[in-house]
């Protein structure tokens, strides 16, 4: 559980940063005249929070194969899209503009989700490199002691 929370926290802060960037890009393209108050600073935090809910719900202590883990990730991403669209456009009338905005948000979620996982993977790759270096030292030390 501790590891799961640590991972969720890591992905939350990366998500919030990327959501900020996505809001800047999408906002500039779709609604450049829009002006916000200070509450705008809250949106990335709330969206990031919504984004980590599926990873806390759809998680397991079972040892998953790589294929199972990928399927689980895709399910998580779809759930995030559904939750965010419901949160952002749940009360809006269904018209062409809403559908276009929703599609743009869904695409942003896919891009952010992939980026978050790539960044997490890169951080893990750094850890793995450090572990491999420690491993070599351990093996050399162990061989000398025999």
């Amino acid at each position, binding site marked *: 559980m501790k590891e799961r929370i640590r991972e969720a926290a890591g992905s939350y802060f990366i998500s919030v940063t990327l959501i900020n960037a996505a809001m800047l890009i999408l906002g500039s393209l779709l609604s450049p005249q829009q002006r916000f108050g200070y509450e705008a600073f809250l949106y990335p935090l709330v969206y990031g929070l919504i984004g980590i809910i599926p990873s806390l719900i759809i998680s397991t*202590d079972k040892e998953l194969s790589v294929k199972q883990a990928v399927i689980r990730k895709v399910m998580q991403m779809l759930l995030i899209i559904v939750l965010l669209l419901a949160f952002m456009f749940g009360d809006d009338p269904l018209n062409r503009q809403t559908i276009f905005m929703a599609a743009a948000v869904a695409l942003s979620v896919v891009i952010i989700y992939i980026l978050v996982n790539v960044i997490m993977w890169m951080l893990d*790759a750094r*850890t793995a490199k450090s*572990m491999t270096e420690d491993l070599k030292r*351990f093996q050399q*030390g*162990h061989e000398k002691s025999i």
Partner: protein
Amino acid sequence: MQIRVKIIQNKETEYIEIGCHRHDDRVDEIIRSVKLHQGSVDAYSGESLYQIPLSDIYYIEAVDDRTYLYLENECYESRRRLYEFEEILPERSFVRISKSIIVNMMKIVAIRPALNGRFLCRLKNDENVIISRKYVPEVREKLRG
């Protein structure tokens, strides 16, 4: 059962002698423990019993209620439980990497990231075993000595 320790001269070979009324499972258990401490373990392939040097073991896996020892190309079954290996093997180069696997760190070639904060160990025989997220801190600590 009384335990006696007798100090012998350096020129004599060290030994362990068991005085018992009959050779039963209890005595076999003591023998297995002593062998394990000495660096080998009893394991079965079919009905045949073998002495497997610990240094030859790549990893130990528990599958259902059985425990298997994986060597470079062979697999043997052990009557010991995974937790029994876990109690004794940390003194050596073995570390638990998941609920069901203990790996010999001397047989790992490289560690790579897998999904979900897990890591993949490539072994010298090109097999891969996964380090679970939960066991990563323990493995790192062991590697750093």
